[in-house]
């Protein structure tokens, strides 16, 4: 339990931990727990009201433990306070519907967003806050330290050492916060082996482990099929490369996961190289192993990539490119979300990603009515860290554009890249974000804004690039946004004269201003046009999941 501290007793957490372990021992359960007895173990070591961190990552999921917890008796286990990065599986939500858990602090909910919203409206769930990844990890070490954590690893040895494989992701942050503050660490593993390829979590941080009846679920979240990239996305990628990457000499960066940025990745060996940019841009990345980056890596455009997690099918390719990726002595990748997010926040000069809505202040949101989807890591990387001290040409140039030649600090480039209309002619540019209505209907304290407008430096659309750093008044900023908002109602309501003036000042730049011929905006410019092309580029090392194959 997490009651306020009473003077005189200084080891209540440790004693609580002993109590829980003794209860487990009385069941006759050793460190290696049989899968059939996992429910008994959970009911023995978890107490009502506990903070329980359930490892749900972008990719790897502790799905067996999640289902086992959801199957526990709500009379024994109730009012749990769940902490998790990603709420992705049906069983994550079952916990609340079945009365086992009642409070949630999380970061991203993706596919379960609609169910989550219903539970909030029905008051079956209390949301503490929706965090960014780094905030949530930070709070694990401040005021949301878990009593118990349920994690996933690839394999364990007899002593209980764990190997997480390429998808280490959030595991180190979760285990460290739990194991060193009197908590209980329970791991599900895919297999028990005599000798681990490497030790990612030492045995004395792990209390119990269980061989799950099936391998943990991993979502291929970062695979974008080049066949789906459109000519318009190629045009926008050409503009971004010429108007932003080349202009600022962006070497250290993070990309979002959409098709817009996948198009940029696939133009690095072609268009960007043709512009003489190889080695001058995009050399160092905080990025998941995007398959669409393979042609750029193979063409020598990339020097280093640190990853939040891995990607299904990229394992052999990564192992064979250890100069580029972070790998262990065993050859396989070591990822770490906390470190990679830190790198994305502080060590990168640019974040570029897509969004669903942008308002006239440049605030962007992926919230839609009836869904609570959260943030993930985009707001960490898509924000200007005011604490940054080290300089780089890109960071300095952006800072001086915003603050003049005597600016005392630089700026991170935070770029939003969108087509002005989404599918079904839904406009991306709006007078008011749906996030405000969602705030009202869900009783939130803040609207779920993904990237704050004052962090956004550029907006790229098919109509051009708006450089918000150079805007000097809120009015200029608004017209710069309207000026690239195309034929959305927001774009049509532009002050045409002012937009033309902004264009004269280089605040708005069109494809023709950048010397881009629309006839070259063609899929032919992509270095790979299918998943199969990516496999060819990788020399057969990339093994895409079945759903991306037609062979």
């Amino acid at each position, binding site marked *: 339990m997490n009651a306020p501290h009473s003077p005189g007793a200084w080891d209540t957490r440790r004693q609580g931990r002993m109590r829980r372990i003794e209860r487990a021992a009385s069941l006759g359960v050793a460190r290696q727990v049989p899968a059939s007895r996992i429910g008994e173990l959970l009911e023995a070591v978890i107490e009502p009201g506990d903070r329980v961190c359930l490892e749900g990552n972008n990719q790897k999921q502790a799905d067996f433990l999640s289902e086992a917890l959801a199957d526990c008796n709500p009379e024994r286990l109730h009012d749990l306070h769940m902490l998790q990065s990603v709420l992705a599986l049906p069983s994550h939500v079952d916990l609340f519907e079945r009365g086992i858990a009642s409070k949630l602090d999380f970061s991203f909910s993706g596919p379960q967003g609609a169910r989550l919203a219903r539970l909030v409206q029905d008051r079956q769930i209390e949301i503490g806050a929706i965090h960014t990844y780094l905030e949530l990890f930070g709070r694990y070490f401040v005021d949301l330290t878990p009593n118990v954590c349920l994690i996933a690893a690839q394999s364990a040895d007899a002593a209980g050492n764990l190997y997480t494989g390429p998808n280490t992701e959030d595991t180190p942050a979760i285990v460290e916060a739990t194991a060193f503050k009197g908590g209980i660490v329970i791991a599900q593993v895919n297999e028990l082996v005599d000798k681990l390829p490497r030790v990612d979590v030492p045995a004395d941080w792990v209390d119990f482990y269980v061989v799950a009846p099936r391998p943990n679920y991993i979502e291929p979240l970062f695979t974008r099929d080049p066949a789906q990239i*459109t*000519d*318009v996305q190629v*045009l926008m990628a050409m503009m971004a490369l010429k108007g932003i990457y080349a202009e600022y000499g962006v070497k250290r960066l993070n990309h979002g996961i959409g098709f817009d940025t996948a198009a940029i990745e696939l133009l690095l060996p072609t268009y960007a190289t043709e512009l003489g940019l190889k080695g001058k841009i995009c050399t160092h990345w905080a990025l998941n192993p995007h398959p669409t980056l393979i042609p750029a890596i193979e063409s020598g455009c990339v020097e280093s990539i640190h990853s939040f997690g891995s990607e299904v099918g990229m394992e052999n390719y990564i192992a064979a490119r250890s100069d580029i990726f972070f790998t262990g002595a065993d050859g396989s990748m070591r990822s770490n979300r906390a470190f990679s997010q830190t790198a994305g926040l502080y060590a990168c000069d640019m974040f570029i990603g897509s969004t669903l809505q942008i308002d006239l202040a440049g605030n962007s949101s992926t919230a839609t009515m009836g869904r609570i989807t959260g943030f993930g890591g985009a707001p960490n990387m898509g924000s200007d860290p005011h604490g940054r001290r080290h300089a780089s040409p890109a960071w300095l140039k952006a800072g001086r554009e915003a603050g003049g030649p005597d600016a005392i600090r630089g700026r991170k480039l935070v770029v939003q890249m969108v*087509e*002005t*209309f989404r599918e079904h*002619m839904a406009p991306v540019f709006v007078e008011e974000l749906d996030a405000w209505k969602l705030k009202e209907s869900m009783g939130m304290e803040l609207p779920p804004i993904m990237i704050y407008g004052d962090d956004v430096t550029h907006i790229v*659309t*098919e*109509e051009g690039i708006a450089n918000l750093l150079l805007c000097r008044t809120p009015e200029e900023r608004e017209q710069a946004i309207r000026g690239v908002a*195309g*034929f959305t109602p927001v774009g*049509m309501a532009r002050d045409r004269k002012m937009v033309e003036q902004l264009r004269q000042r280089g605040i708005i730049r069109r*494809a*023709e201003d950048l010397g881009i*011929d*629309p*006839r*070259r*905006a063609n899929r032919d410019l992509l270095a790979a046009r299918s998943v199969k092309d990516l496999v060819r580029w990788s020399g057969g090392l990339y093994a895409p999941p079945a759903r991306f194959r037609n062979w």
Partner: protein
Amino acid sequence: MENLEFRFAAQPVKPAAGAALCGVVGSGNLEILIRPGDEADACTVVVKTSARGFGKIWEAVIAEFASRHPVGGTRIAINDMGATPAVVTLRLGQALGDYTGGAQ
């Protein structure tokens, strides 16, 4: 389906080809055929589109195109299967590029 017709005054253009065709009538796409027209300082446009109710946006997209480029003396025919304004603008630019035959 909706049939739309527009006429815009525009600076005359010098064609290199007798006609230029760009795009395909596929989902979210369109084909654009540019041919010489009858009036040197006007551009006439005929649109057949599968999506109803977007006449105002079509007019704005083509007006913007006609104001940014010399397209006088042309007849433009469009068959559309729900292309977004982004795709329409891109294809118009590509078709005009082929029609005037400038170096890429």
